[in-house]
């Protein structure tokens, strides 16, 4: 049903119907933002990247092979864009630290992502930082599988399709991700 309605929407967009594109955005915006939040842990950054995802969807829609599910394709774009954003952010932070050492830092810096989290409570803030760091320390594949499962509540079969791996690989990735997270969190509380 969803695949069918997505096809109708795609056809309308390809005919130049702007309202159809708006409908598509409204239908999938929470899905895309949640995927981005899972990687970025910041609502504002996640919304910015989600916008980029929809822009890419819009410009590449003609190339999209309709035998695949639209959501699978959108998840892939969201994961790639989020990971690319994190990589470029890491590079910027490296340059920033270099500037800090040589006293070249600017005053109008953006606040770190953790500071803009809606969780205002101090303890909650600490816990948020702790889980984010633990998730960020996972290997890329474990992180993708875990995030899609936890933040988007996707079944293993769909994660396998998005990642282009087998179902048993996804099961193993998520299991190992949970074990690693548990180990890191326990280690933190022990010390």
């Amino acid at each position, binding site marked *: 049903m969803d695949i069918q309605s997505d096809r109708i929407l795609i056809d309308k967009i390809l005919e*130049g119907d702007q309202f159809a594109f708006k409908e598509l955005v409204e239908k999938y915006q929470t899905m895309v933002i949640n995927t981005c939040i899972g990687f970025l842990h910041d609502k504002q950054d996640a919304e910015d990247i989600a916008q980029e995802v929809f*822009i890419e969807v819009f*410009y590449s829609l003609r190339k999209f092979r309709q035998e695949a599910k639209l959501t699978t394709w959108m998840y892939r774009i969201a994961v790639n864009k989020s990971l690319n954003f994190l990589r470029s952010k890491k590079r910027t932070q490296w340059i920033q630290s270099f500037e800090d050492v040589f006293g070249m830092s600017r005053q109008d810096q953006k606040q770190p992502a953790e500071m803009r989290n809606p969780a205002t409570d101090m303890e909650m803030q600490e816990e948020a930082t702790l889980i984010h760091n633990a998730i960020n320390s996972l290997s890329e594949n474990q992180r993708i599988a875990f995030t899609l499962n936890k933040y988007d509540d996707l079944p293993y079969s769909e994660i396998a399709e998005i990642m282009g791996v087998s179902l048993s690989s996804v099961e193993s990735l998520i299991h190992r991700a949970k074990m690693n997270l*548990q180990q890191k969190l326990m280690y933190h509380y022990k010390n």
Partner: protein
Amino acid sequence: MMMRCEEIKEILIFFVEGSLNPDKTNQVQKHLEKCQECKSSYLKLKSVLSIIETEIIKESNPYFSMKLIERLKNSSETNEVFSAFRIIGILKPVVAILLIGIAIYTGILIGGSYSHKYDTTVIDDSRGIQLQAVADEFYLNDIGMENIETLLIIENN
């Protein structure tokens, strides 16, 4: 037999998310009732993992699509893409009709040329006279009239 603390700490995350089988769940529960250290670890782990739930967005932002559409409208590339989509949409039937037209016209031409070849009635008198004149001049007429088999016959006389 009661599970040891090390064993509990290995599977605590699965207990928190409720994915253990009923037997294991029961064993962990019994252990937590008696072991304060494991119970404390369980509560901390549960609290930390619940952060994920608080981050998940459930309602859509009404300004999100507006902002996006605005961004796309301001982009000249978008207008080009939309107009390209529209032009392609309009052109599709036009091109189809043109192709059908060309196919029909070509068919008529081919059919017409064949009918001219075999239909002697369509040659008017003046054209016939002209053709005859050319044939007489270049002796094409004889060859044209001569039966092909006769070319291989040796004349005895």
